[in-house]
């Protein structure tokens, strides 16, 4: 089983291997700095259980668990 960002808990860190898929969502994630080799720290989960907040390249980014699942870790 590939490990994805969704498998991490708040406080844990993972390194990006690749992003599944193609098109606008993937491009947006990459534009925001989620590229190969980037370290991502999971900050927290929103009060209603989704989306999540992560720290990437020194700033705070938020996306849903569905997007987190497409981010495959090393």
């Amino acid at each position, binding site marked *: 089983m590939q490990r994805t960002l969704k498998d991490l808990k708040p406080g844990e860190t993972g390194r990006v291997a690749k992003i599944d898929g193609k098109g606008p969502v993937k491009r947006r994630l990459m534009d925001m700095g989620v590229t190969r080799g980037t370290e991502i720290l999971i900050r927290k989960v929103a009060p209603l259980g*989704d989306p999540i907040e992560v720290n990437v390249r*020194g700033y705070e980014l938020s996306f849903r668990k569905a997007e987190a699942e497409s981010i495959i870790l090393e």
Partner: protein
Amino acid sequence: MSYTFALAGNPNCGKTTMFNEITGSTQYVGNWPGVTVEKKEGRARRFKEEIKVVDLPGIYSLSPYTMEEIIARDYILDEKPDVVINIVDASNIERNLYLTTQLVELGVPVVVALNMMDVVTTRGDQINLKKLSELLGVPVVPASASKGQGIHDVMQKALVVAQTAATVEVEVPKLRFDAKMEKCLDEVQNLIAAYADRHHYHKRWVALKLLEEDQEIKKKLDLPANVEKDIQNCIAQLENEFDNDTETIIADGRYQYIADVVAEAVKKKNTGSTLTVSDKIDKIVTNRIFAIPIFLLMMWMVFRVTFGAVGSWTIDFVDGLVNDTIAGALSSGLEAAGAAEWLHALVIDGIIGGVGSILVFVPQIMILFFFMALLEDSGYMARAAFIMDRALRKLGLTGKSFIPMLMGFGCSAPAVMATRTLENEKDRKLTIILTPFMSCGARMPIYLLFGAAFFAQNQSTMIFSIYILGIVVAIISGIILKKTLFKGEAAPFVMELPPYRIPTLKGLFIHMWDRGKAFLIKAGTVIFSAAVIIWFCQTFSFTLQMVEDPADSILGVIGHAIAPIFAPLGFGDWRSAVAIFTGLVAKEVVVATLGILHGLGEVAEDSMELHTALQTYFTPLKAYAFMAFTLLYFPCIAAFGAMKRELNSWKWTLFAVGYQTGIAWIVAFLIYNVGRLFGLT
């Protein structure tokens, strides 16, 4: 000599502050041609030279996926500003430089304004400006826009660059990709050289975009089939070698380069293990348990201040000013000048009565806009989206829809325009349809009037319940529409949570004024004309005779004709029917119409007169049904126009307003009839 500078940068990089500082009061706010993305222009102050400054939309990248990004790059490519001033948030340098790497490829001189240097200094980080400038191949000027520092230096540098641009060759971008990628880039550049030159585009940039399979550029260049095929071969070869798509290879390459630049030029004091102030605030504000109560409390507080004591005080103040002082002075002035009776009636009853009844609410609306600006500029709005996303997704929306929805409480028209920030078309459509259910500022006068006349004891609770009603209707509509017309996959949600910032008072006032101004202009133009027309229609009959009884006037006839539609809802009186009819123009006109119909422009010392008049044909239950109807039906001409432009389809626009009006009728019907069953009056 005159020059044009364009400001480009990420959202939240301090671009607006910078723009305000550069241009001061010379700003002109309009739209980009053909779309509703806001375009701001101004003239640089404190310079002899004529410098036009254009504020490009805040963007993260120059991808072809959002309207803002396409506008920004088309502007730079086609209008060729003399200099692009790229504002980079120094405290978030890696991601900000990503846009920089793309801007320098466009072939227009770039000056980097390294903003928020004060934050960097406070953190104890160090940036080697000379090194950064060398590595990027463009001038870098430090600044702190919020403190007013370095702005003149940035402009001075940009001016020097603009003045020497003719003699100095624009530097080739320093960014180099993997050798295999570079080889392909060279090949493609050779293939398309002639086509790129025809548009005066930079070859390397065009080649990159073609390798990324950017459809917008393909369309613009209109390449012959054999060239397209050669490019496709290059792409296939690259994708095969890297086992990834070209968009990814290029994005990876950019960030790789940025990481190298940052490693050399930036010395970070700590690695981010300590908590920043923002983190600490977020620990509470987006806390699992406290987040939602805090959110609701904040919304409630905004409400209390806007509609409570502070708001009422401003109403009394303006009311006294307009209806006593100004109306009194005008009235005696007109009499002294010996003006005809009809002119006196037009000015006092028509114009003062109509526009005046709106003006009294302007301060309150300004207060509301002030809070909106505060929430937005402080960074809380993004948290609200983060907190509410899950709930909104149940309605087929995203957390980002929350921002336009919240703006909808100010004014539906800009709120509808704000849906541009949603990338997904389905989200956008649904948000546009539902946003007008958020009760806008223009509807407030209706509730305030009826609230004071019929619910004196619990006015703010009743008004609050109307706002809640709008939200509930939006929720139910969202669920229904999601299950019917908007079936399918949930749209993605990728959003930055910018650090909290203490907004400057000046910034807040500019922001508030920008929005509030639109409201004032509306009061001065649309509502002014509407007031005159309504006055005319209620003073004259179809045979153009002045009538004694407004019931015989043009409006009276229309009112009588459409009143039966509203009879089942409890308000079948022709006067309320007329108010609903004229309210199609703008919701403020509803109150203005009632004021004119009761001939209160002249006699109104305070609105008590209107209250008494309304009590003759409304009961509390009927009044509540009327408030609910005006909340939900067709928003106004301005919002309709915005919806048409954003939805870009008559079918969808008519569906939206038809749906809204239908729902309004049903809800008002239920309120009135269910209320009666329970013995309410």
